[in-house]
Structure formats: structure tokens, C-alpha cells
């Protein structure tokens, strides 16, 4: 049922193994190595999966942030697809302009007007922004672009703080996490506020497709990207992309840390198709939240015996949100 709603002309081919995904990349490398993102960074995994999952021409619009800075140091670039960066808070607005240009130039060509360059028949416009550029400073531009109905996909790579400037608190930072602007100290236990639920904010725009994904569940992520770029209208993906520097863990563990976020139900995988919620990963025996927290330096202070009650409170919060999500899904489950 979902498939016919999203793909009127049949589903695109989907790689079944990581090798198949990597083979696509070697045929047409759209994002090259040699950039200066950190070892163990989750972000290039998102980018490579996104670009490999899309089989049509792509234009990328990038908010200021780690990804932009580390991949385009003039005169080199890691991008083999058209790429645009304007500023921090306006990736969605700049993408709106690209999309409007594509729409009007395509229309004028259909009417027989000459277009002075090789305009492709179709193009997918993908905007990337971190959580700072999306949850916070870019939220207005994102909201406007979603409301206007541009056909584009916005992908937030969420590493839960301003990592490009060295780990400052954002609206995506979870409660009680240590950041450099919510430091743990004698009188402080880290961030004292809640985390903004951006995925739900996107859902509230009633756009055709919204999903939450994680780099650990790559098949789910690839499937979601393909869905997102096929809908006729805006789509939004919120992808958890851990940051070893800011979160404080062994860089080899990035994918595992992301997986623990899903298996503890801290970061549920779900999608919202025309308003209907679908659960995409249902840990039958969810791991305790502590399993995720204890491997990250930013939560180290919570493991002290006197802070036991804080761990319990966080666990209860995760439980409540998970139960609420299950209710919204009304039994609709679609796991890859």
C-alpha cells in the first residue's frame, strides 16, 4: 500500500548488501574521500548513503557546518555533484530557489523557449544541515520551505550539538549532556532543558514524507532516502550521526553508538507518510538507556551514584516517548 502511494511507477532498485551499495559508488563516485572530516565522523556515512541511494541527477545545498567546511576547502572539493553553500541558517531557503529555478526553466523549455545550458530532465534537490543549522538557526527557513511545498529533501545530520565550533549546546542536545556551553561543574549537571523534537515539528507541516533514521540501520536509511526523493513535495529526514569528539567515545564505535541509540529506544526509527506513522525498528527487548549513556563521555557524570535518580528520570522519559510513538503508529510496523 505504501509502495503504490509513493512510487506510482514502481519501486526503485534497492541495494541488498553494503557491497552492492559500495559498488554503486565506485561506478559513479559522487562524494570523494580526501576531505577533512574527523575519523569516525557519522556525517560522511549519511552523505554517501544519500548520494548512492539516488539514481537521478542530484543538486546538493549545504548549510554552514562541519560538512561544508571539511569538504570544500578552496580550491579542492569532495563533491562530484553540483553543490551550493550560502550561509548557516538558509540551506532550505537556498534550496527553495534552486527548486523554483528548475521548475520555471523546465516549464519554459516545454513551452519551446531556449534554455542556455544543459538542463536535466529531472533532478533531486537535497539539502544537508547539522542540528545547529536545522533545529536552531535554520528552523524558520526550513519551516517556510516545508510550508511552501517545494519538491526537495532536507536531511538533518543530527549530532546533538554545534560540533563545527567545538561542541556547544543546541536545541538537539539531550538533557543533562555536557557541552562546552552547558559544562558539568560543581553547580551544574550539563544541559538543564529538554531536547526539541524536530521530527515532530516537521510532521506538523503536513508534508508528504517525514522520517527519522540512523546511520546504524543503513538499509532502512537507504529505503527512506529513496522514498523521500520520490514524493511530490517536501520531505524531511532526521538522521542520527554521532560525533566521537563531542560525545566522547572511541572513533571506531560510531556505528555501534548509533545502533545503541535505536536499541535503547532513545532514537526510534519511524516514518510518517501522508500523516500515518509507521514504526521501522521495534526492539522487542529494549536495552536500558544506561547502555547508551555509559559509553559516552558527555554523560559520564550521570554514572556517579548520587545521580542515579537522574538516570531513572531519563529512562522514564524515553519510555513515555516510546509509548506515545507506539500509539501513533497504531500497529503499523514496517521493518527492513
Amino acid at each position: 500500500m505504501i509502495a503504490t502511494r509513493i512510487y506510482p511507477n514502481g519501486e526503485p532498485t534497492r541495494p541488498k548488501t553494503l557491497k552492492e551499495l559500495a559498488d554503486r559508488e565506485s561506478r559513479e563516485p559522487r562524494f570523494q574521500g580526501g576531505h577533512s572530516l574527523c575519523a569516525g565522523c557519522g556525517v560522511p556515512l549519511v552523505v554517501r548513503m544519500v548520494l548512492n541511494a539516488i539514481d537521478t541527477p542530484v543538486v546538493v545545498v549545504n548549510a554552514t557546518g562541519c560538512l561544508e567546511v571539511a569538504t570544500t576547502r578552496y580550491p579542492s572539493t569532495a563533491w562530484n555533484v553540483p553543490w551550493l553553500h550560502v550561509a548557516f541558517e538558509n540551506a532550505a531557503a537556498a534550496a527553495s530557489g534552486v527548486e523554483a529555478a528548475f521548475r520555471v526553466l523546465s516549464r519554459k523549455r516545454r513551452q519551446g523557449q531556449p534554455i542556455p545550458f544543459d538542463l536535466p530532465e529531472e533532478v533531486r534537490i537535497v539539502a544537508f544541515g547539522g542540528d545547529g543549522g536545522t533545529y536552531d538557526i535554520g528552523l524558520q527557513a526550513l519551516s517556510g520551505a516545508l510550508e511552501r511545498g517545494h519538491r526537495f529533501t532536507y536531511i538533518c545530520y543530527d549530532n546533538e550539538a554545534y560540533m563545527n565550533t567545538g561542541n556547544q549546546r543546541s536545541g538537539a542536545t539531550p538533557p543533562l549532556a555536557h557541552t562546552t556551553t552547558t559544562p558539568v561543574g560543581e553547580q551544574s549537571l550539563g544541559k538543564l532543558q529538554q531536547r526539541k523534537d524536530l521530527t515532530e515539528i516537521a510532521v506538523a507541516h503536513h508534508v508528504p514524507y517525514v522520517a527519522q533514521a540512523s546511520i546504524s540501520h543503513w538499509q532502512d536509511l537507504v529505503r527512506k532516502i529513496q522514498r523521500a526523493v520520490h514524493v511530490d513535495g517536501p520531505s524531511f529526514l532526521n538522521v542520527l550521526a554521532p560525533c566521537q569528539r563531542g560525545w566522547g567515545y572511541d572513533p571506531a564505535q560510531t556505528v555501534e553508538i548509533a545502533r545503541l541509540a535505536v536499541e535503547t529506544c532513545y532514537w526510534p526509527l519511524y516514518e510518517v507518510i501522508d500523516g500515518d506513522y509507521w514504526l521501522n525498528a521495534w526492539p522487542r527487548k529494549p536495552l536500558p538507556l544506561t547502555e547508551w549513556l555509559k559509553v559516552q563521555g558527555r554523560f559520564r557524570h550521570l554514572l556517579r551514584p548520587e545521580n542515579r535518580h537522574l538516570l531513572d528520570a531519563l529512562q522514564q522519559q524515553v519510555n513515555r516517548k516510546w509509548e506515545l510513538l507506539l500509539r501513533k503508529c497504531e500497529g503499523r510496523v514496517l521493518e527492513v
Partner: protein
Amino acid sequence: MALGVIPRLEAAQLLTGAQAVAHAMRQIEPDVVPVYPITPQTPIVEEFAQMVADGRCDTEIINVESEHSAMSAAIGASVAGARVMTATASQGLALMIEVLYIAASMRCPIVMPLGNRALSGPINIHCDHSDAMLARDSGAVQIFTENGQEAYDYTLMAVRLAEDERVRLPVLVNLDGFTLTHSAEAVELLADEVARAFVGRYRPHYPLLDTRRPTTQGPFDMPDFYYEHKRQQDEALRSVLTVFPEVQHAYAEATGRNYLGYYEAYCLEDADFALVVLGSTAGTAKAVVEALREEGQRVGLLKLWLFRPFPHAAVANALRGKQAVAVMDRALSFGSWGPLYTEMAAALYGLPEAERPQLYNFTYGLGGRDVTPDQIAEAFRRIQDPRTPTQHMHYLGVRA
């Protein structure tokens, strides 16, 4: 100009400045126009949106949620390969100023009429030039216009100027808020075919949507390249001093409308005392010049069309040997001289001392304060009085 002029023109119509600019936009038919309302610019985008709704012009309008997004979407569309315009004023320009600098650095030929209005605070919706002066160092070309006719003509010329290979920069066409945007006067539009032929087709550089030839646009620049890029950008803006008269000449050829030079000289050649002004105040000043001339005073006017890049040498040449010059600033640069005065001082300092006029700075008309003929006459009176202090800010029309 030649007699062939008249058939090329539509009959004169009664149009507000906003309507005249909207007609120019219709004739230009930009591919993409992000719009956001702000007084006193709003009627420009309202009029234009109606023209698009009526099918008189094929443009993709983006109803953005802020001016910041208006300029951001304009950059996206421009880099993508489309011809782009937008319009704004005051706080809207202030909100988009971050991105306007980037539009200039990315060499986006975006044309933007600006309905000049005072900046907050206190909030005020009426005319002065503080918004334009905020964009002074943005890297955008800035043109000031005296009336609806000029606003219309320069909006058309701005497209040729912006898109010239040597320039490729945003162009702001300033028209005074309310005084021009909302006041109706006789405006002669060009016939659509004439306007369209003059503007020509847009040829984008490295369009982002040319996906078979991917480009990386807006990359991260470090100390090893940033400086060279900024110097190139400055050279592009300075090239307008060459291109601007060429575009004016082409416009005269195509339409018979004579706008030749960076400025209009009114009774200036034989004047001993001159006034330098931007925008609609020139109309009032011309009437004062005429009246004073009838009294035998040797006064004249220099009305600048081009403010960025600033034509220092040409202006100095025009004022060489005058006794005194009044520079009229409709904006403050707090703690310094007016923005126009500092340019004029820089220009005239290049003259030999014997030919260098005395220079006086007048602030006037802030926040829409009426600009009366008496105020202009007062400026002329003061600069003809040897006891009037130079190196002094003279405020006209303000309560003590």
C-alpha cells in the same frame, strides 16, 4: 534625441513609482522572484504578483517567510541558472544584509529595487537613506533615482548592468519610499518588445542545474585565497564605472532616453555654489535652483545616479573650481560625517587646493521629515556666507 523616439514609447500613464517598477519587472520577466512584504516596498511585489497571476509574465514567485530567505532563495535560483529579481526596504534589507554580501561575493546578478525607508529604531516607515547606506559596503551596485520615470528606466538598465560579463553583481535601484513608491506621476513605459530586446536573454555562468558539469559553489576560503577573491570582487564593482555609461548609451540608442553620465548636472557648469543630492530631493532642489537663479545667484545641482561604485574622479571634475559645495545626507553615520559627505570629501581632496571647493555637510529629512524648498534655500544661503563653519554637521529641518 532623434524623432524616431516617440513611436517606441507607450503613451504616458499615471503610475506610482511602485507600479512603474512592477511594469519594468513584467517586461524583464525574471524567471524567479522571491517576495516578502514590507512598507513601502509592498506595492511593487503586489503589482507584480497580479501581473503574473494575470498571465502577463511567466515568473515563478516564491512567497518566502522572511527577507533573509528572499535573498537566500534569490541566490539559490541565480546560481541554479535563472534570472532573478526581488525587492525590499528598510528592516527587510537589514535582515537580508548578511546574504546580500554573499550574493555579491558569489557574483549573482540579482536586481533589487529598494523603496528607501528609515531604519529602526525607533520604528518608522517613511523615507530616508539609512537602509541604502547599510548596504553601502555590501559589494552591490547602487543607483539612486529621482522620480518614477527614472526608477522605471534604471530598473531596466540595472539588468544589463548586473549581467554584464565584467560585472556580474547585484544591483540595487533606490527609489524613495512613499515620495516615489506611492506617488503617482506621468511615466512613459517602453513598448514591451523594445524593453525585452534591450534587456536580452540571460546567460548564466556555471549554472548549478547543469548537472553533467558539476560545480562547487560557495566553498570554504582560507587565508591563502580569500584575499585574492575579495580583490577580484572589488575590481568587478569598479568595472561598473566603465560599464554604466555603456549601458546608458545602449539605452539611449534603443529608446531615445538620455541618461548620460554618473550624475545629472543641473545648472552646474557656470555655478559657483553647488548642492549634491541623492534621490527625489533633487526635484525640490531643481525648483530652488531655478528660483535662486532668477534672483541672480550662481547656484547649481549635482544629482548622483551612481553611488556604488562611487565616481570620485568624475564628481571632482564636475565640481572643480566651485566656491562651495553643500552635501546633502539623508542618513547619519553616527559619530562621523554623512555617508555621502565622506565620499565627496575623498573625491575633492584629489583636486589641487586652489580648485578645491569649501565643503559643507547637511543632514536632512530623516524618518520622512518633509524636505521643503526653504531647507534647500537655507543650505544655499549658508554655503554662500563665509561665516558658516565648515567641518560642522548642519541639521536642516530639525527642532533644536
